[in-house]
């Protein structure tokens, strides 16, 4: 039974993807996608009820994975060579070809000459525990909602582009196959299998980013490819060193070998792979470039699922490097990314880039939690993982809907949108609030992370704390700036009329926002049933949930009373307060207003001039071109110091 559900979780999406590739009829495709979604959601809930187990499929699968791995590498090599042929020698194809060759040669050396037999067997291949089940829930539920949303989104997208021949079969092939690869990734215990699924997600990422096939998309796709291949190379080196030092490729055994000297090097390489997959500094440019892809891709791969694979890996191997210099280094690296991306997001005017920077920042925060490596910090990390996936996926979907209504992703064009598109704007505002304000889940995780870092008994904790709090304050600035832009209306007493309701667009986002709010209100029972067993795998849980408050060891967050206050403070006034038309006055423009209901004033020669208000972007002081030349080298230096610490210590 266990083998069956694993097989369905991993293989069924691959099959569904291949069938989708051949389906020309859009209704048939939609039915297949909805059917796959239902199967995956049911499956993930089944995993939750079943609990932890491990499983090893028959030995033929090892050989199959080995072969497929090389097929994949060969395809990557082909991509690199094709790019070289089309545009000549360039950093991107040099890196692609070089990294593929590096990976391929060392992997082949390892598997065929250094390993005792071909293929190398690891027991067990699949290890399902609470952390993987949480990831599976995120992948299946949020991923399915995004795929369903994608049905209408891609139809509108292609109509807007005026495409003659539809590319949707190929699009959904990669999207659904990706879900299967992610399931395989989170359940895999053998490093070889993990590496294979890791590379499949790289493939899907590359293919989906370049979907629109503009020169910009193709460039971004290849950049994502070679940066992720750095991670792949790191994986191969981690495999070689782990086998060399420990004689095993099982992740569970590596975690239990805590304390073995020279174990840190393979762990550092695995962290490198995670950092590239999660687009941490200085590798953030691939995620920013990936924003040219259609919004479902950004929502699925680049906020809730694929980039989570990196932080999932770090969280999983965190018990192995607890208390070492590597741990502090990882925390410092995560904190640095969190602070720098928060500051960089302030100067962005494009909504998707703001969301991308915020994603990278929050992933950096999760890595910081993994680096701090105390039970409270790991609890904070896992909680943040779940809540961030929900809220960020939601926000990307909302930006997609807004984009398809006003045909612009620029924040400046979203001014006063609450009166034109009240439903989606309210949902987006709720999504932003859930990412930022107390007492929602993301903020409770941040609170726990601050307390955990404060309690860390290390001389570096003040520096890590400083990075954390400055980053946290900077996130307030860019989110509220954007939120304010939505709310900025022309003086009027009129109530906005709701826009037309589209079930495929609005139901996924409504489900996501309801779950974000619901899980935050009920965070205490949610923590007890679902997150506590995940922490309890390798640490003694310190968080308890008396009275449905969130009790850390040293502090307590009273979640639901503050929700009650928030309801009283926000919801009740907005239902109760009435405004009469005679109470409307114009905004103050030194007395030169034209009329109350427009935003115009009389300027030179008594000419009616529209008032144009813009946001603060501070691009002179905080722009990318200014800051990146300091931030990128510093991040690289921290990474090098990390490795140096591991080699020397």
């Amino acid at each position, binding site marked *: 039974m266990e083998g069956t559900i694993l097989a369905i979780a991993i293989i069924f999406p691959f099959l569904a993807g291949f069938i989708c590739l051949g389906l020309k009829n859009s209704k048939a495709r939609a039915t297949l996608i909805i059917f796959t979604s239902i199967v995956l959601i049911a499956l993930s809930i089944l995993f939750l009820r079943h609990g932890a187990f491990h499983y090893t499929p028959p030995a033929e699968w090892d050989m199959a994975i080995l072969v497929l791995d090389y097929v994949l590498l060969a395809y990557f090599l082909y991509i690199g060579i094709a790019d070289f042929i089309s545009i000549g020698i360039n950093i991107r194809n040099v890196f692609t070809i070089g990294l593929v060759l590096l990976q391929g040669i060392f992997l082949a050396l390892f598997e065929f000459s250094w390993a005792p037999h071909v293929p190398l067997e690891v027991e067990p291949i699949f290890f399902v525990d609470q952390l993987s089940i949480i990831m599976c829930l995120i992948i299946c539920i949020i991923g399915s909602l995004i795929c369903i949303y994608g049905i209408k989104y891609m139809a509108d997208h292609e109509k807007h582009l005026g495409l003659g021949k539809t590319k949707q079969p190929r699009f959904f092939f990669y999207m659904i196959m990706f879900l299967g690869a992610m399931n395989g990734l989170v359940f895999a215990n053998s490093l070889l299998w993990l590496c294979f699924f890791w590379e499949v997600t790289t493939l899907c990422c590359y293919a989906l980013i370049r979907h629109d096939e503009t020169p910009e998309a193709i460039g971004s796709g290849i950049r994502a490819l070679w940066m992720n291949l750095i991670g792949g190379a790191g994986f191969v080196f981690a495999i070689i060193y782990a086998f060399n030092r420990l004689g095993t490729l099982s992740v569970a055994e590596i975690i239990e070998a805590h304390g073995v000297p020279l174990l840190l090097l393979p762990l550092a390489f695995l962290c490198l792979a995670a950092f590239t997959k999660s687009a941490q500094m200085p590798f953030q440019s691939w995620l920013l470039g990936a924003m040219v892809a259609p919004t479902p891709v950004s929502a699925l791969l680049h906020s809730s699922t694929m980039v989570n694979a990196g932080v999932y890996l770090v969280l999983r191997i965190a018990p192995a490097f607890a208390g070492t210099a590597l741990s502090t280094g990882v925390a410092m690296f995560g904190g640095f990314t969190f602070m720098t991306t928060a500051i960089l997001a302030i100067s962005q005017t494009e909504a998707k880039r703001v969301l991308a920077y915020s994603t990278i920042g929050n992933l950096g925060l999760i890595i910081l939690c993994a680096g701090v490596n105390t039970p409270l910090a790991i609890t904070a990390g896992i909680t943040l993982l779940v809540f961030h996936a929900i809220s960020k996926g939601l926000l990307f979907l909302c930006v997609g809907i807004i984009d398809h209504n006003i045909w612009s992703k620029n924040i400046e064009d979203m001014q006063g949108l609450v009166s034109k598109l009240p439903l989606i704007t309210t949902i987006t505002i709720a999504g932003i609030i859930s990412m930022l304000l*107390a007492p929602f889940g993301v903020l409770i995780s941040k609170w726990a992370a601050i307390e955990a870092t404060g309690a860390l008994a290390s*001389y570096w904790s003040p520096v890590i704390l*400083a990075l954390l709090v400055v980053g946290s304050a*900077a996130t307030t600035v860019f989110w509220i700036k954007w939120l*304010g832009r939505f*709310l900025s*209306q022309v003086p*009027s007493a009129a109530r906005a009329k709701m826009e037309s309701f589209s079930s495929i667009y609005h139901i996924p986002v409504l489900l996501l926002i309801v779950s974000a709010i619901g899980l935050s209100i009920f965070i205490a029972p949610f923590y007890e049933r679902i997150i506590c067993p995940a922490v309890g795998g390798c640490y003694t849980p310190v968080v308890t949930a008396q009275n449905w408050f969130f009790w850390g060891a040293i502090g307590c967050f009273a979640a639901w009373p503050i929700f009650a206050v928030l309801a009283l403070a926000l919801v009740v006034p907005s239902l109760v307060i009435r405004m009469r038309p005679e109470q409307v006055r114009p905004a103050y423009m030194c007395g030169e207003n034209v009329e109350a209901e427009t935003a115009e004033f009389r300027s030179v020669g008594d000419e009616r001039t529209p008032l144009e208000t813009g946001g603060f972007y501070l691009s002179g002081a905080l722009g990318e071109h200014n800051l990146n030349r300091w931030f990128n080298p510093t991040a690289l230096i921290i990474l090098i110091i990390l490795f140096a610490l591991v080699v020397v210590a």
Partner: protein
Amino acid sequence: MSLWQIILAGILAIVVAPFIGGLLRGVDRKLTARMQGRRGPPIQQPFYDVLKLFSKQTITTNRTQLVLAYSYLLLIITTLVLFALRQDLLMVILVLGVGSVCLVLGSLSVRSPYSQFGGHRELLQLLAYEPILILVAVAIYLKTGAFFIGNIFDQGEPLLPSLWVAYPALLITLIIVMRKSPFDISASEHAHQEIVRGVFTEYSGPYLGIIELAHWYEIVLLLSIISLLWVPGIWPGVLLALFSFFVVLIIDNITARLTWSWMLRVSWFGGLGLVILNLVGLHFFGG
């Protein structure tokens, strides 16, 4: 805490605090006038101001403003109540952030040049002082082993001798929250009119009164956080808070308003730097 203590804490926070805040504002204006060689208004002037505001006609530009003014007031009162109920200090500071955000959103919700300026500058003020407050809470934790205000209160010895390096940072925070020179960049005090009234421009009448009330609660909250630095007993802490208040008044009268980049530089490199130094010291010398 017993039921009577909870009710007493609630009454203190909800009913008594605005009177204290109003009187402090009155003393502020009186002392400022005396420092400028004038006589100044009576100490109860802020109460006259707020009562007059509540008696004016309600006019507004949109409904969102009105809703968010109430939200701001209710959230700040909540923060003070949580403080009085001796809850987690870090949680109190984070909920204070929610209240401040409501004020910013209220001003950003109007398409008015001064309001937009004020709202964005208020965000920059938040960026400047929130890191300092959070790190001070962690410093207090390192010294006392507790984030709970109840446990901090029960400490036997005063915290200021170990946290004196971080104290100037708290003064900077107080300057920003009390909206005094040189960091009153979002809603210029004393009717400096280059941004009219910044954040408060589009508010009027009863809603301006609500915001003024919320400002009183906020001042009392910040002073209460400062008073935690000298805890055995209440009165030494209160004296410390009043002393800080007086120092802020003096600084207000001898400086002119600076720009946002100066404010960020002073708060981050000066204020935050001092608190980090204090934290490092606490790690090295025990605490």
